[in-house]
């Protein structure tokens, strides 16, 4: 049952071959059986899930309920879910029970999906390995010594090990795509503004975007249909029609123009990863796509620009965690300064503090122009690079990450090396473009991801291109042996 796709599960639920209660029970059992090894969930909402499953069954019985009614899924613990702990991977919010639903959480409820639990993540989504979580690192289902990537590492590991058929993620600099690649699953980061950010705990507001993590592009298309759409409570959400993402999956890719940015193939790229990605590109050639080299000349600037913009926004976004209204408060504060310094000092981990300090610095009087303002200017150049490229090609393909999953602890003391694991994913965030990572083989037994970047609101195109590849390959069907 756990190897079935969402469309298969949907068919089984509709035909009453299985009930949502049985399905939900089965996945909760798998979580109970396997998650000790992975640590992919922070909270498992057993009882709530069973109640929701029974409610979904009643709807299905009466012939109501949409295509995803009764399907279990997991939410990254960054999305507020009413009445459920929403920790954002931080001690700061370890005691925080969200009093409201994020817009996307409400949409999933409305569609009848059944929440299994909340997945582990890097603290406040700041990390590329899931090692910054207050709840401990998540392990990669393909290699227990390896990280699952981050920050949506819990979602990626849980989907890869089939502890849930699907999960949500958020992506600020690669946090959906990079863990999807490292865990051998499909993960899509939509266009900035495509998915509501209301109730999605902010890291860097101008970069954050929610998306889905699934076994296949087809599953992603189904879930995106629920998650995407305009929200009047998010001023940066865009009122743009949501297409039927599944309808466009089957179009052939013959004649598709694929651009390969030469700046992405260079130092730091693991030869085994490069080989796997080249093989994937060859697959597209066989399907009739035209491949050409393109240039994105400002690529080198993306990581430095990102590490100015994202910390700047995070330093301000995280100011609300002050121990006054909710979240961690230090014991017996002596005065206001003591309340602030100890609550925040105890509540935040080292990586979060590092970024708050960087962000505070780059916004300070006398440094603002040299850092923040300059970074914003360079951000425009990076975006223009893409706009020029999309005048020539339909999609851009790159490796999702320069290496396959690295080992836990390997980069933890070297933030800059850690930051470079997002070197291929960050540019799309800076430009606000959609990107998807699809499994494209293995390097030394660890999964490799192919990243496909599209033009604004071309999610349907990305899903179509990914799906066509998945029609002729079976990487996405592989399940880590221990979790088969």
């Amino acid at each position, binding site marked *: 049952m756990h190897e079935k796709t969402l469309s298969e599960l949907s068919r089984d639920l509709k035909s009453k071959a299985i009930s949502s209660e049985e399905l939900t029970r089965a996945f909760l059992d798998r979580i109970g059986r396997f998650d000790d090894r992975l640590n992919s969930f922070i909270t498992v909402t057993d009882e709530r899930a069973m109640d929701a499953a029974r409610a979904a069954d009643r709807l299905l019985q009466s012939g109501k309920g949409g295509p995803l009614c009764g399907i279990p899924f997991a939410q990254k613990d960054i999305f507020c879910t009413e009445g459920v702990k929403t920790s954002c991977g931080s001690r700061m919010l370890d005691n925080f029970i969200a009093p409201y639903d994020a817009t996307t959480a409400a949409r999933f409820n409305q569609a009848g999906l059944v929440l299994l639990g909340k997945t582990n993540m890097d603290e406040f989504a700041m990390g590329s390995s899931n090692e910054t979580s207050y709840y401990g690192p998540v392990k990669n289902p393909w290699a227990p010594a390896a990280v699952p990537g981050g920050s949506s590492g819990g979602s990626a590991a849980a989907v890869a090990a089939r502890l849930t058929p699907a999960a949500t993620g958020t992506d600020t600099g690669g946090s959906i795509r990079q863990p999807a690649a490292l865990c051998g699953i499909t993960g899509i980061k939509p266009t900035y503004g495509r998915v509501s950010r209301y109730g999605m705990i902010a890291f860097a507001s101008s970069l954050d975007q929610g998306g889905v993590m699934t076994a296949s592009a087809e599953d992603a298309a189904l879930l995106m249909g629920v998650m995407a759409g305009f929200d009047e409570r998010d001023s940066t959400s865009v009122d743009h029609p949501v297409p039927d993402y599944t309808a466009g999956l089957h179009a052939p890719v013959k004649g598709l123009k694929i651009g390969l940015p030469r700046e992405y193939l260079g130092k730091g790229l693991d030869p085994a990863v490069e080989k796997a990605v080249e093989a994937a590109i060859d697959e597209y050639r066989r399907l009739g796509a035209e491949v050409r080299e393109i240039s994105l000349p400002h690529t080198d600037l993306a990581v430095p620009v990102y590490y100015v913009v994202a910390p700047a926004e995070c330093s301000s976004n*995280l100011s609300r965690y*002050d121990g006054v*209204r909710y979240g961690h408060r230090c014991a017996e504060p002596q005065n206001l300064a003591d309340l602030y310094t100890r609550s925040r000092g105890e509540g935040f981990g080292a990586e979060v503090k590092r970024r708050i300090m960087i962000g505070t610095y780059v916004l300070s009087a006398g440094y603002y122009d040299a850092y923040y303002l300059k970074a914003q200017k360079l951000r425009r150049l990076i975006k223009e690079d893409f706009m020029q490229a999309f005048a020539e090609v339909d999609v851009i393909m790159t490796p999702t990450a320069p290496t396959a999953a690295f080992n836990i602890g390997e980069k933890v003391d070297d933030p800059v090396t850690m930051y470079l694991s997002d070197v291929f994913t960050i540019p799309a965030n800076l430009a606000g473009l959609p990107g998807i990572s699809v499994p494209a083989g293995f390097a030394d037994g660890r999964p490799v991801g192919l990243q496909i970047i599209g033009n604004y609101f071309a999610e349907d195109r990305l899903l179509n291109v990914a799906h066509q590849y998945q029609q002729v390959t079976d990487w996405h069907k592989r399940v880590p042996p221990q979790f088969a």
Partner: protein
Amino acid sequence: MQWEPVIGLEIHVQLATKTKLFSGASTAYGALPNTQACAIDLGMPGTLPVLNEEVVRMAVKLGLAVGARIAPRSVFARKNYFYPDLPKGYQISQYELPIVECGQVEVELEDGQTKTVGVTRAHLEEDAGKSLHEGFEGASGIDLNRAGTPLIEIVSEPDMRSAKEAVAYMKKIHSLVRYLEICDGNMQEGSFRCDANVSVRPVGRETFGTRAELKNLNSFRFVERAILYEIDRQIEILEGGGEVVQETRLYDADKHETRSMRSKEEAFDYRYFPDPDLLPVEVSEALVEEVRAAMPELPDQKKERFVYEYGLTPYEAAVLTATREAADYFEAVEQASGGEARLAATWVMGDLSAALNKAGTDIADSPVTAEMLGGMIRRMADDTISGKIAKQVFEAMWAGEGDADAVIEKKGLKQVTDTGLIEGIIDEVLANNPDNVAAYRNGKDKLFGFFVGQVMKASQGKANPAQVNELLKKKL
């Protein structure tokens, strides 16, 4: 040495919207603590601001009223600082690109002169909550009802040269925002607050002295007193050979002094940057025109109209248009009186104003309505009552004894215009005062007033004074 004060004001005007600047919570004053603060106002994780569009229209209204440039594109920024009543750890405000720039207002001074004061800018921002320091034993209470309430901060040029000018400017802005109906103007409830930047320089010098920013000035009187105190303080320092320190000072109304709150060195670095949660505010030409078409008559226009339409003096017109309520009241009196503008102005500025002051009542709540006062003036104009009797009628109306006609009827105050009746009274008075009659006829003209007084007294004030004059002259 002669010193010249230089003053600029920052006026915080609470916009009279039903809901907050970025959330749907109510802005009503006086609710129980934290009952009007939703998840957004509380700065809950994941919440986002959405701009209340009504606020933009109000800002455009204000901008047009002060002849300012309305920015087609303005930007909300975050002003970052920690304080318990600031839930997000930043205030959303406009910084580099405000919605209103480069305006000016004409201010009437007490000596009848007018002065132009520049409005540098006006920007939208959200208010913070309130910290309550009493009654929590070793802790402070936080009330976030006010958090997120929309404000427009109006920043003046340093154009004022005395405390009186500053107060006159502040009153002008107060009048304007109430005319525009964008603020209730209630200073006790904090709907209209002011900070003042004050410096002094030797007369004739062009550069400004070092300024102090005075906070917490929540009445016209406090503004004047705080500025006067501050001017004296700075002059004393300078004349003693010292230097004024750039700092923020808090006005203490009880002790009537300003004291240092924080120096320039301690000033916060607010780390302003554009708020990535909000799009730039775009004001279209069409919106500006729509607001312009719906603009109410402003005090200056109304003043001018009062002069030519009602024949009032500029001074009377200025007094009567100082508030929209007074102007509306006057016009209603004028209409109810049947066009007796002069009498209407005299009564509104005279007896009515005195009675309101004495009772501490606003004109809008006057027990004598404009219709009642107008009705009384109508009776003066048609000679039913004299001016002297009118005072009696007014007092009775004020005491709640009904409208003018009812009072006149009930008290029998109708003027006597019957020549025969008046002549009878005159004859009686003359008969009772033969000595004075003789003295008058011998050239003691001054006694005429005595006879008028006696006749009026005998008629209990009801005889028509003009007729009394005429008939007395004849008889004497």
